[in-house]
């Protein structure tokens, strides 16, 4: 009995000891998912470098939200930078600066998005600052050391600090928001004095002088011309400019030449150079007139285009005087005078089987058939499979230059394209009749018809196209009345042009044509040779084309 008791006792003591022992060990349970500090804490932790900026955030009341959950990018100026700023505004400490001014300053340094330096491009950052002005980025090489540069004002000294609620970039200068509107910016530069007078006379000065509360409407981009650029074109004064363009005598009238000249230099939205070169054309304030752009080496060129086989030299933008931010947009500077090109509509006889990619293959171009894989052509996009550049010398295939494009189209056959899109050559704005010229073929007599709908700029044209249908017999006049024509010198209904409708080309630009199968399984043998865009007031049935490339007027 005694032994049993003592045994039980011992067991209890041991168990208690175990419990007591284990309770002494503190089990560390990790409750946070990250040890990264938030932005404000980061500034405090690195007080040697950023304490002044932390004070600024304290004063403006941003410290709290920058220490809470979120996804921000903050540009944090160093202590020296903040002191430099204080010296600039003539205040001894952060607490003496006007609070509203300071709040704006902070908003200009904050973006509601996480943006690392790998997203820095030559132009504006993808997201706007909380102040509502864009920041631009770049890289500056100073004394052999290259660093990221923000707003052409500050260098990034400590990039990409990852915090719990975003990314911090340390700056060596405080970023100062733009204070001038576009109009003020242009006026302030004596090099633009003639252009400024033109702005005032046409009433655009006032429009460029407002900062719309709605950021979606606020921004504009101006390409200003310096006095020198105008002088190079023989325009020595505002009067000379007015005499040259203003035909109504009232430059403020929307149909006046001077008004249109100025309007043509203003684009909607904030378009920095990097934005200008990445899109081929840009709308302007001049109704339905676009500026085209391209990058040639390192030069940004405006309106350099090939038109009717001639290269028209473009106007270069001055990089140093461009990308200047204003409160309501961005200012660029042109090195030469340019204005709206007045063009009358001209007929475009587009040989669809002549495009840059096939020209690069001299052993195929006008020599052999070649299949282009999906995605290998710049100006053609289609759904699947290959697009065939077909070369033929067969006597029953008398096509222009002996080549055409074979486009498989069909709605229900999964091997064929439901659609194909093509980019036209440059079309001058105006009204045109559109003729699709093809070599009729019907894969099988049992096939039901499979009409194709053709749209221009997304608008369906009035008539459907049937690649398996040839022109009926009749005289040229009778055929034209029915919406048919022959386009090859050989007279045969199999080689025919089909009038699909009349289109309005709104801007002088390259536009998109889309062919869409709307019913049936379709066929592969859709032999597209040419598309004619002929101004409505011009004869539609001439010239005729020869398979050797010649024309019969």
């Amino acid at each position, binding site marked *: 009995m005694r032994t049993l008791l003592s045994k039980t006792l011992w067991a209890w003591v041991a168990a208690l000891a175990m419990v007591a022992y284990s309770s002494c060990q503190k089990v560390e349970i990790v409750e946070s998912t990250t040890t990264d500090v938030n932005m404000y804490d980061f500034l405090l932790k690195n007080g040697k470098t950023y304490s002044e900026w932390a004070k600024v955030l304290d004063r403006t009341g941003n410290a709290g939200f920058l220490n809470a959950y979120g996804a921000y990018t903050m540009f944090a100026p160093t202590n020296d930078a903040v002191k430099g700023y204080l010296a600039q505004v003539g205040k001894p400490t952060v607490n003496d600066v006007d609070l509203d001014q300071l709040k704006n300053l902070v908003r200009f340094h904050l973006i509601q998005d996480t943006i690392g330096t790998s997203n820095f491009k030559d132009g504006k950052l993808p997201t706007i600052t909380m102040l509502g002005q864009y920041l631009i980025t770049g*890289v500056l090489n100073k004394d052999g050391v290259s660093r990221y540069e923000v707003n052409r004002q500050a260098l990034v000294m400590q990039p990409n600090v990852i915090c719990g609620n975003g990314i911090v970039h340390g700056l060596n200068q405080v970023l100062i928001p733009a204070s001038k509107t576009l109009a003020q910016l242009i006026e302030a530069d004596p090099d633009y004095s003639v252009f400024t007078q033109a702005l005032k006379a046409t009433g655009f000065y006032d429009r460029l002088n407002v900062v719309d509360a709605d950021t979606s409407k606020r921004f504009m981009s101006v390409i200003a011309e310096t006095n020198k650029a105008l002088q190079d074109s023989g325009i020595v004064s505002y009067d000379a400019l007015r005499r040259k363009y203003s035909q109504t005598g009232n430059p403020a009238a929307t149909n006046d030449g001077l008004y249109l000249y100025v309007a043509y230099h203003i684009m909607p939205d904030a378009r920095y150079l990097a934005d200008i070169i990445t899109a081929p054309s840009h709308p302007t304030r001049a109704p339905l007139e676009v500026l085209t752009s391209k990058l040639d080496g390192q030069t940004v060129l405006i309106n350099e285009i090939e038109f009717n086989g001639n290269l028209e030299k473009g106007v270069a933008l001055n990089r140093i005087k461009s990308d200047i931010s204003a409160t309501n947009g961005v200012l660029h500077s042109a090195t030469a005078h340019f204005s709206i090109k007045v063009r009358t509509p001209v007929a475009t006889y587009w040989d669809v089987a002549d495009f840059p990619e096939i020209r690069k293959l001299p052993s195929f171009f006008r020599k052999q058939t070649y299949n282009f894989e999906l995605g290998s052509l710049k100006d053609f996009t289609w759904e699947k499979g290959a697009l065939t550049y077909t070369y033929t010398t067969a006597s029953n295939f008398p096509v222009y230059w002996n080549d055409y494009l074979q486009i498989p189209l069909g709605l229900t056959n999964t091997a064929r394209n439901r659609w194909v899109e093509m980019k036209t050559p440059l079309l001058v704005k105006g009204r045109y009749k559109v003729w699709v010229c093809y070599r009729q073929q019907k894969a099988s007599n049992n096939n039901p018809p499979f009409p194709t709908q053709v749209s221009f700029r997304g608008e369906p044209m009035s008539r459907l196209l049937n690649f398996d249908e040839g022109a009926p017999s009749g005289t040229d006049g009778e055929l034209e009345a029915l919406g048919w024509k022959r386009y090859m010198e050989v007279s045969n209904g199999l080689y025919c042009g089909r009038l699909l409708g009349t289109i309005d080309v709104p801007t002088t630009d390259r536009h998109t044509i889309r062919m869409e199968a709307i019913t049936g399984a379709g066929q592969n043998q859709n032999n597209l040779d040419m598309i004619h865009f002929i101004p409505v007031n011009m004869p539609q049935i001439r010239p005729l084309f020869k398979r050797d490339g010649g024309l019969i007027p």
Partner: protein
Amino acid sequence: MKLFQKISFRIACLLAVLSLASCQKYLDLKPQDGIIRQNFWQTKEQMQAAVNGCYASLLGAPAGVSDRALPEYLFLWGELRADMLSANLGVTNEDLEIMNSNIDPSNTITNWRSVYRTINYCNTVIDFAPSVLEVDKTLSQASLDAAVAEAKTLRALMFFYLVRSFRDVPLVLKATYSDQQLEQLPKSSDTAVLAQIVKDLVAAEPVTPESFGDKSLDKGRITKYTVNALLADVYLWMEKYPEALAAADKVINSGRFGLVRGNSAWFNTLYYQGNSNEAIFEFQYDRQKLNPFFGIFRNRPRFMASSRVMEEIYTVDFQDDTKRDIRGDGAAVRATDGMIWKYLGVDNNTMRAQEESFAHWIVYRYADVLLMKAECLAQLNRGREALDIVYTIRQRAGALAATDRNPDAQDKVGITDFILEERAREFAYEGKRWYDVLRHAKRDNYSRLQLLLDLIANSVPADRQQSAIAKAKDKNSHYFPIYIYELQTDKNLVQNPFYK
């Protein structure tokens, strides 16, 4: 009696347990699936196996290590930053970042591990092979010297890739064979690394064999001519032209190499079969060990040729399509779809099957040595002789008149630029373009930095072009950052200041 039975049963059990335990070798620390160093290095065959191991490491990462094969790194390092590649459907984010001049220390392409792995194998041979001489009396001093020389040359080649890609790198010259002697080395300057490379090569040159008596061994192992070709390249990088010229001449005057004739079999001989008369040193892929390039260029292609390649580098004769630079369409690229044909073709038209993806990685070939010589001659103001060499190369390839710069024999800069352009045509996608442009750009204290800036202006996307150019004006940016993992594990390493 019962008690006795009980006890004897217990003893029997105990014995059984003990005897079982003794079968397990608790105390034997030797691995059961390999040979340890103390048992290795006994015979000359084992020494030779170790040397072979160094070569084998060039072809791919060892079993159990997931890493790119070395030639993939060498290709990416030599071509990604240059102007002859465009992104294709399968391009990775890391590829793109480098192509856009947006290099970051966390980019695994900047990981140098696979190069140092080969260096460590070479160091092992250099450290332990001499001990075989005492154990195996059939090993001659000459064979030992040759084996060490091969390892030293291979190590020099690896350091040469490192110094050109990273500039300052740790100079690891001792084998890492146990946990106790893991070293955390700091970086050595590029001058120190280059001096070590030259020292190793000069030591190796007299004792490396001229031939191993077999074509594939002569092209797949390091011969005296590999050493000299490498030495010429190193001296060229160091701007020591008389020395480079002497080394190149040793290869040229040997009479063992010649240019493969530029006929219809040229592509097949040089690139498909490999080990041609022109080859000096190639990584020997074969049907048993395939190269990584089929996956990179064919299956889900990461890259295609940039449009510059056919338009500006080789050009096309639109009037007469029988006039073709044989190195362009159907050799470097397939012009119709921009495929990198050099590693995919059997001949100008036929594509390899996947199991035929054994194109060798060509480190040096005769044409390279000839053009290196031309570069030396141009720098030594012997323009006429330099041009003669360039025109020999051009004639073999049927280069088009449009790419003939036709510089005057006195025009040093003109000739030098012409050679650089010719190298782009001759060695397209052989992992040399970036190093070639960098070597020309940095010559005479970066007097031709413009070459590099033009290269970037041509190859970086338009909306990043100005930033990329400004970055390239910082000389530190021409070299890769140290990969972040290496920085964390070796506290003595200091990051390249451009990436701080």
